[in-house]
């Protein structure tokens, strides 16, 4: 057993890159999927709407930890091959992100939707043009505070990847705690690092929201 040293702290900072990796993968893949889900939920096509709704209900009705395990054990079973933990975790986070962002963005779209669609149509724009140039920018602005808020949730949720062994920040904390028998120092450090990342984002989300209300 050794004491908690500065190098343990550095190890944690090093592990942050895995936290960041998970977040970026989830956003890069889940973002476009989320947009697709938002459009499916806003569309007049009942089938698309219902499919997206079912996916949303399932994701919102199951613990993220459950989804992680489902894909971690399920992918080898259904695909027949061993997949690295990173892949199954990424799939779980991607679907999680797509569902929640989809719902947030749907809210933004519907907040803008009705009058603006009519206005765009009256100007002779096609439905896609109307969406791309008129509705989407405004919807994005309205949904930005909630989107940043979700980003904070996502960052915090990457801590669950530690449970399937991925060495991101939370796992680094567990390892340090086990090696040094100094759980308070280890976990307090981990908490402080998460806080340092998340708090500025939370504040940004709040200032965005204030600006939004002034504008409206």
């Amino acid at each position, binding site marked *: 057993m050794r004491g908690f040293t500065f190098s343990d702290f550095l190890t944690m900072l090093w592990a942050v890159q895995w936290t960041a990796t998970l977040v970026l993968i989830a956003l890069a893949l889940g973002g476009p999927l989320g947009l697709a889900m938002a459009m499916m939920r806003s569309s007049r096509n009942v089938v698309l709407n219902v499919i997206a709704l079912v996916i949303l209900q399932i994701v919102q009705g199951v613990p993220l930890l459950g989804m992680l*395990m489902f894909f971690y054990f399920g992918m080898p079973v259904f695909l027949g091959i061993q997949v690295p933990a990173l892949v199954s975790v990424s799939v779980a986070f991607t679907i999680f992100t797509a569902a929640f962002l989809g719902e947030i963005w749907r809210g933004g779209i519907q907040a803008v939707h009705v009058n603006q669609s009519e206005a765009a149509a009256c100007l002779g724009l096609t439905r896609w043009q109307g969406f791309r140039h008129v509705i989407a920018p405004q919807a994005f602005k309205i949904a930005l505070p909630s989107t940043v808020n979700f980003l904070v949730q996502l960052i915090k949720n990457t801590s669950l990847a530690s449970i399937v062994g991925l060495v991101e920040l939370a796992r680094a904390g567990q390892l340090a705690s086990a090696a040094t028998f100094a759980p308070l120092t280890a976990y307090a450090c981990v908490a402080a690092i998460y806080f340092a990342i998340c708090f500025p984002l939370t504040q940004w989300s709040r200032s965005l929201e204030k600006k939004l209300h002034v504008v409206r």
Partner: protein
Amino acid sequence: MNLNFNQLWRYQDDFLHGIQTTLLLTLIATVAGMLIGLAGALLSDSRQPAVRLAIRSYVEVIRNTPALIQIFLIFFVLPYAGLRLPPFQAASVALSLYMGAYTVEIFRSGLASIPKSQIEAGQCLGLTRFQVFRYVILLPALRNIYPSLASQIILILLGSSLASQVSADELFHTAAFVESRTYRSFEVYAVVCAIYFIMVLSLRLIFAGVERIAFRWPTRR
């Protein structure tokens, strides 16, 4: 593909126990969390800066750190301060604090959602401050925050799965236990996910029913 769900039936009682513990954890965290939240919301307007700062800090720390780390801190760290809590109790404390921080914000927005003019009207009719709170503010504020509060309770139900990481014997921990006995990993977790889904769906139905009964007055649409 070689799926076998049959082996799981033997562990019905374990699953049932896991469900009960999950529900109990959720209930405790919800009640305690709402009490903390109410106190925090009312004290947010305190004239003492130290009180306001304390509440603000509590809320921000909880909201900007992962729940998993919070549970670890309560479970692994408190013993060093002399308080060794068993897993269920530790998880209850952690989840209550978590719920408390989020409900402070929810209750604050609820209190703020009642226009000052309503309060004035109550006061001008000769009602005491408590009567104004009880009859003029309470129900409309509750109706305004109801969706957020319901969502938050469901999040706590799902978040209780994290208690498995400190070996509290709620549903997710049961899953790990059954998995270690049957090696049917995928089947176990698929079933457990389904159980959570059913619990959440049931809660949503209950919340919708309560809303219909409690909040009957018409609103501007």
